[in-house]
């Protein structure tokens, strides 16, 4: 059943006038879509191309093969960024997933004030990462934040200096990121919990399952597609995280909290190494694809299966 929008595709006496009459609608459909699609494709290709050229301050032609990639991959900056990304990505996703799930299950208990609580858990998502980073940089700053407060209150042995501690600084980003976006996981999980067929829950109760068993064996297993979605969305955020780190630690102390997005920015706009910056951006894209392609395949298989069922 197709609605044929283009009756003018057939040659005919009135085809030209039909074309002219429908021109405005063609323009308004195609121009934005084409601009969007064209910029995505051409920008990607262009950046990939630049990553193979010896461009530094300005884009130049030429072919240096994988030289930019090799030098990015060999740089300490990138290696630290990559290790940080692994740690940050895994810790952040796991913790925000468990926090979100816990909050969703708690809110699912028909508690009073659910709306207020939901509003509280979700409001950080409305705030920019810059604001989040700035605020947490104050709270976690040993000189003016929580540590200082503890000292002022007389607990002089209290130490909480992760922000300026090379080994622990990356965890401050984890904390701020969880604060900002665990509400997202909660919202999706809660929607999932609420969409569980109530007859299934009744059946479990008739089968004699208690609340814990009902959750563990009956309700939570239905949530795993949502879990996958949450993981992918959060990983996508982690991989391209920039604003939050820029505002919270700016990659420091030293380069202890460097992340790929900061390396790209640094190479492109601070060191004027366009070729290497582009190579680092392409590497970021590859990391992202390593997450998204399996996800896309998984969704495709699921849809196929659903269609066959």
């Amino acid at each position, binding site marked *: 059943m*197709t*609605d*044929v*929008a*283009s009756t003018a595709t057939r040659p005919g006496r009135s085809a030209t006038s039909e074309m002219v009459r429908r021109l405005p*609608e063609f323009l*308004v*459909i195609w121009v*934005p*879509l084409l*601009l*969007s*699609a064209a*910029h*995505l*494709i051409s920008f*990607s290709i*262009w*950046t990939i191309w630049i990553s193979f050229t010896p461009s530094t301050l300005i884009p130049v032609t030429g072919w240096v093969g994988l030289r930019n990639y090799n030098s990015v991959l060999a740089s300490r900056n990138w290696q630290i960024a990559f290790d940080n990304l692994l740690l940050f990505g895994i810790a952040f996703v796991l913790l925000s997933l468990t926090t979100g799930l*816990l*909050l969703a299950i*708690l809110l699912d*208990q*028909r*508690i009073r004030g659910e709306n207020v*609580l939901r509003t509280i*858990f*979700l*409001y950080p*998502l*409305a*705030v*920019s*990462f*810059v*604001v989040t980073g*700035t605020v*947490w*940089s*104050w709270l976690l700053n040993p000189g*003016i*934040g*929580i540590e*200082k*407060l503890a000292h002022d209150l007389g607990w002089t042995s209290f130490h909480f200096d992760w922000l300026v501690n090379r080994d622990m600084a990356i965890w401050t980003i984890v904390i701020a990121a969880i*604060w900002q976006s665990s509400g997202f996981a909660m919202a*999706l999980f809660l929607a999932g919990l609420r969409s569980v067929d109530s007859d299934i829950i009744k059946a479990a*109760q008739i089968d004699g399952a208690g609340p814990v068993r009902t959750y563990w064996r009956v309700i939570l297993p239905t949530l795993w597609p949502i879990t996958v979605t949450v993981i992918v*969305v959060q990983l*996508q955020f982690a991989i391209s995280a920039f*604003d939050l780190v*820029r*505002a919270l630690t700016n990659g420091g102390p030293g380069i202890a909290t460097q992340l790929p997005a900061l390396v*790209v*920015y640094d190479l*492109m706009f601070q060191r004027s190494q366009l070729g290497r*910056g582009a190579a680092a951006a392409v590497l970021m*894209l590859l990391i*992202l694809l390593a997450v*998204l392609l399996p996800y896309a395949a998984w969704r495709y298989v699921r849809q196929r299966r659903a269609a066959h069922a």
Partner: protein
Amino acid sequence: MRDRSFTPSRALIYLIVTLFAAAYLAPLVVVVLNSLRTNEEIAQSSMIGWPQNWAFGNYAMAWSGFCVAETCAGIRPYMLNSALITIPATIFSTLLGAVAGYAVSLWRFRGDNWIYGIVTLGLFLPQQMRLLPWTIVLRDIGLINTLSGLVLIHTIQGLSFTVLFCRNYYVAIPHELIRAARIDGAGFFRIFWRIILPLSAPILIVTVIWQFTHIWNEFLYGVTFTTGQQQPVTAALIALSTPVADIPKQGVQSAAVIIAALPTLLIYLFGGRYFVRGLTAGAVK
């Protein structure tokens, strides 16, 4: 399991959610309180504390007197910049996305699935892949370091979201409605204007809220493509938080942070339902 009677286990549930709520609210409370404390008071104690002398002047200072980089006009000009970027880009991307989403979902045309698929890929392509090309494009069309340049970027990139949102909403509209209207003699625009648009309020609210929040909160493009007086407020906040000498100024900074976050916070408070809907719609791409 889902009864409202009060038991020890329910008391525990309330205790846990209250603790979590306190943790989520704490940063906001701290900043709000700080915005009402004097810089000196904060410097003598810590960022966390109850105002001894209420310093409402912080807000006036942050709004129009405070120095960011070398200019001392507060964050007012940057708020204005953000508004001048966010409002037009939100309107353009929403309107164009609604028309395109309507065309893709309710009118079939050659290549519709292809172009739609490519456009939605934009949800995934990292901004870093587009930074250099946008720099060159903006320079070539003379829009580098202008608000119009950022409007253009956010309009085009926003289409990926707005087309997706609107298309997914419009596919649920029965095709028979379009058929009936075509038999009645209505064309593409008349059907959109008279039949589709009046049905679109829910999705347009979601889209506008989502686009506004995203564009307002965006930082990378703002800091890359504009400098000085042209920057949006997110970029100005970073410049502002860079410590200048040793002059303590956290009170005013806190006020600035509150002001900068206020538009999106208000939108969230008054349109929370739609905000969450956008969030989940964006996730289930």
